C-alpha cells in the first residue's frame, strides 16, 4: 500500500492517464454542444442575419445596415420602443419598491410568516398565458370582477383595457403581479442575512424605525436589491407572454412591446425578417448595456 501511494506521488502531473485527461471534456461535451448550437452560435449569427432581409425565412438578400436604417426611421418602431421603455421603467420601480416593502414587512411579521411568503409566491407559479387571460376577464369593463368590486363603492365602470394609458398601466400591474413574489423572496433572503445585533445596537442608540430602515436595512440589503434591479430590468425588456393574452398588444398598439414586434415581424405574415433581427440586436444591446451599468453602479454604491 505504501509502495503504491509513494509511486503515485512521484509520478509527475503530466503523466495523467489518457482517460483522466479526456474525462472533463467528455463530461462537458453534451451540454456545450447543445449550448453552442442553440445559444452561442445563434447569438453570434444573430448579428449576421440582421444584415439580410427575407420575407419567408429561406431566401435572403444582403442589406448591409439597411435594416437598421429602416427600423430606426420607422415610426411604428419608435412607438413600440417608447412603450417598452415606459413598461420597463414602471415595472422596475414597482418591482423594487413593492418587493422591498413586502420583504421588510414580511420579515417583521411573526405570525404566519411562512404563509405570507407562500401566498405571495403563488402568482410566480401561474402560467403567464393563464394570468393574462384571467386578468383580461377580471378587468372587463362591464361586469368584470374589478369593476364590480369598485362598483360597491360607487365607482363607475372603468375602461381598463380600452383606454390606451390605462391599458399600459394594467400591463405593468399584471407583470409585477406575476413576478413580485419571486423578487420578494430574493430580498427576504437578503434581509435574513443581516445580523440582528446591528439592530440591537441601533435600538440602544435610540434610532427610530424609519431611521433604521434608511440607514441600516437598505444599505445592508444593497446586494439583494442589485440582483432584483438587474433581473427586473432584464425581465422588463423581455415581457411578452402574459401581454399576448391580456391585451394582445392593443388597444391600437398601446401595449405592443419590443418582443412582440420581433415575434410578429419574424413569424406572422407579412414576415419582415430584417426588422425582426435588427430589433433583436437592438434589444440585446440595450439589455446588455443596462445590465453592465446596473452592475457598475451597484458595485460602486456597495464600495462607498
Amino acid at each position, binding site marked *: 500500500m505504501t509502495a503504491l501511494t509513494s509511486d503515485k506521488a512521484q509520478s509527475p502531473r503530466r503523466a495523467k492517464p489518457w482517460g483522466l485527461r479526456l474525462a472533463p471534456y467528455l463530461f462537458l461535451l453534451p451540454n456545450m454542444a447543445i449550448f453552442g448550437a442553440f445559444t*452561442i452560435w445563434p447569438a453570434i449569427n444573430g448579428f449576421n442575419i440582421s444584415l439580410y432581409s427575407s420575407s419567408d425565412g429561406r431566401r435572403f438578400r444582403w442589406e448591409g445596415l439597411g435594416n437598421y436604417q429602416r427600423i430606426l426611421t420607422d415610426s411604428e418602431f419608435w412607438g413600440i420602443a417608447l412603450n417598452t421603455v415606459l413598461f420597463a421603467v414602471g415595472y422596475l420601480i414597482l418591482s423594487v419598491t413593492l418587493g422591498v*416593502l413586502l420583504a421588510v414587512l414580511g420579515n417583521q411579521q411573526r405570525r404566519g410568516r411562512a404563509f405570507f411568503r407562500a401566498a405571495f409566491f403563488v402568482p410566480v407559479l401561474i*402560467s403567464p398565458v393563464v394570468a393574462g387571460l384571467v386578468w383580461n376577464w377580471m378587468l372587463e369593463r362591464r361586469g368584470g370582477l374589478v369593476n364590480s368590486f369598485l362598483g360597491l363603492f360607487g365607482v363607475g365602470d372603468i375602461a381598463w383595457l380600452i383606454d390606451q394609458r390605462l391599458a399600459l398601466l394594467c400591463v405593468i400591474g399584471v407583470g409585477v403581479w406575476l413576478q413580485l413574489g419571486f423578487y420578494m423572496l*430574493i430580498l427576504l433572503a437578503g434581509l435574513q442575512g443581516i445580523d440582528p445585533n446591528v439592530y440591537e445596537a441601533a435600538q440602544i442608540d435610540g434610532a427610530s424605525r424609519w431611521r433604521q430602515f434608511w440607514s441600516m436595512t437598505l444599505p445592508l440589503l444593497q446586494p439583494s436589491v442589485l440582483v432584483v434591479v438587474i433581473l427586473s430590468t432584464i425581465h422588463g425588456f423581455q415581457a411578452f407572454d402574459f401581454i399576448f393574452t391580456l391585451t394582445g398588444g392593443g388597444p391600437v398598439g398601446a401595449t405592443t412591446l419590443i418582443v412582440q414586434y420581433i415575434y410578429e415581424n419574424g413569424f406572422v405574415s407579412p414576415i419582415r425578417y430584417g426588422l425582426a433581427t435588427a430589433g433583436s440586436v437592438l434589444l440585446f444591446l440595450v*439589455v446588455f448595456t443596462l445590465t453592465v451599468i446596473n452592475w457598475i453602479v451597484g458595485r460602486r454604491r456597495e464600495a462607498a
Partner: protein
Amino acid sequence: MTAPAPTNRQSRKDTPGRTWTTTGTRRVTATDALRVVILSTFVLLALIPVVWTLLGSFKTPAELAARPITILPENWGLENYTDALGRFNFTVYLRNSVIVTIGATVLTLTINAMAAYGLAKYNFRGRTGLFLLTLATIMIPLQVILIPVYQVVASMGMVNTLWGLIIPAAATPTGVFILRQYMLGIPDELIEAARVDGSGEFRTFVRIVLPLCRPALAVVAILSVMWRWNDFLWPLVVAQSESVYTLPVALARFNAEETVPFNLILAMSVVTIVPVILLFLVFQRQITTGIANTGIK
C-alpha cells in the same frame, strides 16, 4: 416550513421594533396592525385571481355572463372539465406538455450535472473560460436570439416536433451554475478514493457524486419543470401545427380565436396551473431556498 417557527426565536428577532422597556411583548401596536393590513391586502391581490379562476371553471356560460356577477358557482359539477377533455384534442396538448416537461427536465439534469461535474472537479485547459461563457449567457435570453435559434432548429428539421421543444433550451446556464456550486462542496478525497479503488470516471460520477447532489438536483429539476410547463414564446414559435401544441399555446390560440366558450378556457387554465401549484406545495422549501440562493429564474 409550514409549522410556525418557535416563538422564542421570533420574539427575539422582533424586539427591535418594540419599546424595549416593556417585558411583555403581547401588546399589539398600531404599526403591527398596519403591517398585517398591508400584508393581507397583498395576499388577497395575489390569491384572488387564482381563486376566481377556480370558481369560474365550475360556472356555466350563462353564469359567467350574468350581471351582476355571482361569486359561487351554482353547482360544482365537473362538466366544464369533461367537456374540455372531450373537445379539441385537449388530451393531446396535455400529453405534449407532459412529454416536453419531463423529457426536457431529464435531459437538462443529465447534461447540466455532467457539465457541472467537469467544471467543478477537474483541472483542465479552458475551464475558467467555459464557466464564464456559461455564466455570460444568462444575459442572452431566448427573446433576443429567437430568430437565429429558430433557423438552427428549422435547419435540423425540428420545427413542429416535440424534440424541437425539448432540446434547444435544455442546456440551462442556471442549472450548471447551481450544480457546480454544490459539487464544489463535495470533498475531492472521496473521488480520489474511488479512483484508487479502480472506479472509472463516469462510474464515479454516477455512483458517488450524483447521489450526493440530490438536493441540488431537486432544485434544478423543480425549476426546470416550472419553466417548461409554463413556457410560451418558444413553443408558440416551434409548435405551429395543432398536434404539437402544448397547453399554454393551445390556451392562447383558442382564447384569441374567441370561438371556444370561456368556461372551457377556464377549465383548461385550471388544469394548466394546478400541477405547478401542487409541486410547489410539496417542494416549497427546496424551491424557496433554491431561488433565494441563486437569485435566478
